[in-house]
């Protein structure tokens, strides 16, 4: 299966680092209101759903590992948020393909996850078949428009 092949190219250590990266992109919200992207296991989901991301991801994680070693940082997750941000930007400079695709797919998939939707106060379901209630609205608001003379040209 493509997904298995994709995730098997990434070691467990890399997966932990990847989860940290995802949590840096969409961190847990204050007071735990919103989960972090790594925390909800988005890494596994992305590898499964977007296998074409794997090569550039592997490359980007390797560059990140190098940057961490250069700075003698053992644990990316333990850095302050602004330090994580600066480091990932640096990886983006060295590996230009890394951030754009990763950001797009992180945003796109994070906001499909049931925990995330519930945290937004939404029902965790697709729109069909139940749809939504929507108020008809007050058509009396049209009264001033009704009083206007003809707006089209006779010809």
């Amino acid at each position: 299966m493509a997904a298995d092949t994709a995730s098997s190219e990434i070691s467990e250590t890399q997966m932990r680092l990847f989860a940290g990266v995802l949590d840096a992109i969409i961190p847990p919200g204050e007071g735990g209101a919103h989960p972090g992207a790594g925390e909800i296991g988005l890494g596994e989901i992305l590898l499964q759903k977007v296998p074409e991301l794997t090569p550039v991801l592997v490359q980007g994680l390797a560059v990140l590992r190098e940057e961490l070693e250069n700075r003698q940082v053992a644990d990316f997750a333990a850095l302050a948020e602004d330090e994580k941000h600066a480091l990932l930007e640096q990886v983006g400079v060295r590996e230009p393909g890394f951030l754009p695709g990763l950001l797009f797919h992180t945003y796109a998939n994070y906001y499909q996850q049931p925990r995330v939707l519930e945290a937004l106060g939404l029902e965790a379901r697709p729109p069909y078949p139940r749809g939504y209630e929507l108020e008809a609205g007050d058509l009396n608001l049209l009264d001033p428009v009704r009083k206007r003379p003809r707006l089209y040209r006779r010809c």
Partner: protein
Amino acid sequence: MPEETADVVIVGAGAAGAAFAWSLAETRMKIVCLEQGGWMNPAEYPSSRADWELRGFGDFGLSPNARGRPEDYPINDAESPIAISNFNAVGGSTILYAAHFPRFHPSDFRAHTLDGVGDDWPIQYETLEPYYDENARMMGVAGLAGDPAYPPKQVPLPPVPLGKLGETLGRGFNRLGWHWWPSDSAIATVEHAGRAPCVNLGPCLTGCAQGAKGSTDVTYWPEAVRRGVELRTHCRVREITVGENDMADGVIYYDAEGVERRQKAEVVVIACNGVGTPRLLLNSRTAHFPEGIANRSGLVGRNLMFHPYAMVQGVFDEALDGYKGPMGCCIMSQEFYETDPGRDFVRGYSFEITRGMGPVGAAISGMSSGSVPWGPDHHRSYADLFNRTTGMVVICEDLPEPQNRVSLDPELTDSNGIPAPKIHYRLSENSERMLEHGVARGREVLEAAGARETSAQAPLPFAGWHLMGTARMGSDPSRSVVNEWGRSHDVRNLFIIDGSIFVTAGAVNPTNTIQALALFIADQIKQRLDSLFD
């Protein structure tokens, strides 16, 4: 096995082909429609899956080039600031359309006489009026009578709900004293002709799983097929063939297996839309028609009109429920529709209020605009935008200009090796000024409605979804491709019935007018059967 000669062969089963086939079917003639796409299965539309929003960037995307379904043909629009958006299936582009369904104004048929631009149509609003009414019944149009922007008209179904969002913007228009009205929408707001009512799913632009949106696969086609029309799917027409006396004698097409076939017919009707139709005509060359069939005027492909669009959005403090309800149908304004000599442009535009985006759409659009950054500020920025952003599109009238055109690409072909269309288009100064005016007025109305910030994009680069003018109608064969009732000046049994025959573009979505024209032409054919080719 030789194929039977049809009385009528129609190419294209979209908005126009469907209405025409249904109307003509009452003659009991042998009618065959060839469509390169297949029937859609509403159960497979994105809105029933968690990734519903993402599929709007994939297999339900707007551009055939990116979508790349087997039934799509490529379109070289690389040099146009506005890219083509369409869909190829039974129902055509109505599978994706928003179903915003206004009529043209009477003045739209008289642009030259009234404003000295473009040309007058050879028909008038009154000519199409009964067909607008018929189309409203068949497509199931929802709306509200009494709009002062239009002559009195029939609207069979109750309007789409305003919701909090429509009310908020309606109040904004009222504060400025500007016109607004609930949009005419081809959406079954109550059960209609066997169609289930709209349940406010939102994503009408990736197909309506509920069957409430009036795409022609659920409106005209089931009725037309019941009346005896043969709809042959996965059949891509390569060329129209011409026999003696410059009369068309049928078409050559590739069937689902890619086998070349021929369909002979007494009458050939083209309904492939404003890009597909000129492409087919230009691809049909003979010794008598070296520049393409029906093209002695040299106007096939020329005068391509879109509606240049702008999008203006505002962010509000309160939640607006914008992810609920038909996304392109809420209210509209025609305050700036008619020409006003005090402005620095001629003709005008409509505002179509769009609703909001779903959670993924809001995230991706926030990411692209930079307003929803990644990192520590992410959740706060997202909460500021999601369900609090709404706005409008500005739909500008495009003027016909011969250099804006569809030609054949010298290299690009579809999967059957048929030359693909190439788009040559530039935005006119008039359109640029109109867009600028529309954006400024759009911001004003959003602010009057309470928006705390606004943003705008003009022209919208992906909004080439209204395709018009490339085989215009008229009474003078040197200045038009078809006559007053859709018949080619050059080939007397060839009819064109889609937006290609528009003379000018109006400033509203065109499908209601395209279908009213198709119904009108079908009636003309019925009335003239004895003298059709004279």
